[in-house]
């Protein structure tokens, strides 16, 4: 499935360009503007450095969260029924979707890195940091793809999914450490940010890409691994129900 996703992008790369617009706007306009204000405490790093991992995470999550829509679309087309009638295990089908989202996420990572480089943002790209980016993209895209598939299986229609998708994506982004540190949030929001897997994606990416440290990576990866595994199992259980 993931290979077919790459082939689709190669047949029609325009989607890569259109998807690149949002992170470029966030970095180029929001990032540039806020870095001039200097209102947000980002320690030893520039604001643009601080939000680059956040914007990358946002791109990955926004791609993944709409994979549920893809499931409903495939159900309406009959593709999903065809997949479910094959002997492929349900879990393998779910993982196929997760890896597909991660593949698209990695294309986003390349775009964000190129644009950040053009803006003069200092990013640490070493074999280790690239490996961690790969793992976090895979796990993070996996978790949010799984979450969107569970939502799709519950709501079952495109219209309802679009409504819910929009309602949850922005709060997920804002209730995280993507564009400001958790320490400046009120207590209740700090709690939400702490249980938001998106925060662990940002934290891990920020550690390896900006700080150049592996401190805290183990916790970030563990949280993402466990949550992705749980949501995989839940998705695999719910996936066949979308056709009923």
């Amino acid at each position: 499935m993931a290979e077919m996703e790459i082939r689709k992008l190669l047949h029609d790369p325009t989607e890569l360009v259109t998807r690149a617009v949002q992170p470029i706007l966030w970095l180029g306009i929001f990032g540039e503007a806020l870095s001039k204000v200097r209102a947000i405490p980002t320690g030893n790093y520039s604001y643009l450095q601080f939000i680059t991992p956040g914007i990358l995470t946002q791109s990955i999550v926004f791609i993944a969260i709409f994979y549920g829509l893809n499931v409903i679309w495939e159900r309406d087309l009959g593709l999903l029924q065809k997949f479910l009638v094959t002997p492929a295990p349900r879990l393998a089908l779910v993982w196929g979707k997760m890896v597909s989202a991660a593949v698209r996420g990695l294309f986003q990572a390349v775009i964000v890195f190129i644009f950040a480089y053009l803006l003069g943002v200092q990013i640490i790209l070493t074999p280790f940091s690239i490996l961690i980016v790969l793992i976090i993209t895979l796990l993070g895209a996996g978790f949010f793809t799984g979450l969107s598939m569970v939502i799709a299986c519950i709501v079952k229609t495109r219209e309802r999914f679009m409504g819910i998708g929009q309602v949850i994506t922005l709060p997920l982004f804002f209730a995280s450490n993507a564009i400001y540190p958790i320490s400046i949030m009120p207590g209740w929001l700090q709690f939400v940010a702490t249980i938001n897997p998106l925060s662990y994606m940002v934290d891990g990416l920020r550690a390896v890409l900006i700080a150049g440290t592996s401190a805290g990576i183990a916790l970030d990866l563990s949280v993402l691994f466990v949550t992705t595994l749980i949501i995989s199992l839940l998705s695999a259980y719910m996936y066949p129900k979308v056709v009923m």
Partner: protein
Amino acid sequence: MSNEHAGIIEVDHLVKRFSADVVAVDNVSFAIAHGEVFALLGPNGAGKSTTIKILITLLAPTSGNISVHGLDVRESAAEVRRIIGYVPQTISVDGTLTAYENLMLMARLYDIPRRERTSRIAEVLQLLNLTDHANALVRTFSGGMIRRLEIGQAILHHPKVLFLDEPTSGLDPVARQNVWKHIMELREQYGTTIFFSTHQMEEADEMCDRVAIMNAGKIAVIGTVPDINQKVGKTGATLEDAFIFFTGAQLEDMSNFRDVRRARRMQQRLG
């Protein structure tokens, strides 16, 4: 365990209840012989789709014993999936991939051994007369070509039974004839049992060894077309007369808004 002497599909007292008041399939029993071409007819809501969904393991029955090639669809769902192919009514190929890629995806999902995949795909492309279009994006295909490719995806693993849900819906007469020519070749070449649902009476009349007409969750009549027509008690009765006789429905009245919208969208997409 498989038993060659029994029917390849055996449905015994199948009941599917969605809620206390909604019984989609109401105590249905029938058997299909190996290599038979069998059609399920009936108005919308008669229980055809539910019956097919149960046979292809997408839906669990409420009660009854259902086996395909001797395998219980509930207890051995994974094994049943290895020996059946399914072509949904709606377009079930990915237009953004080529014909070859669509087939390769299914070859992998059917777990066809790596060394055999390319030869199986070539065999299917040739059988369905699509070899020259193997590397074209499917969104450029005509309706008949799309349907042939969908059938190709469902037969890569040489299934013993091929289920088709309204296989020629939305196709013009030429494409329809061509699709059926290929389906019948499958039976000749591989002995595949063909089980399909349709609203096209002439299609059922021409192609089937036997048909069943479902109405309100029950099988109203089952048999060869001449036998069924004879039961209408009218000289020169057609299958359409039999359909109206056994269901009390006019063919015109079969579709609701959703069905019409879906059918028209599909016709539009199939060109």
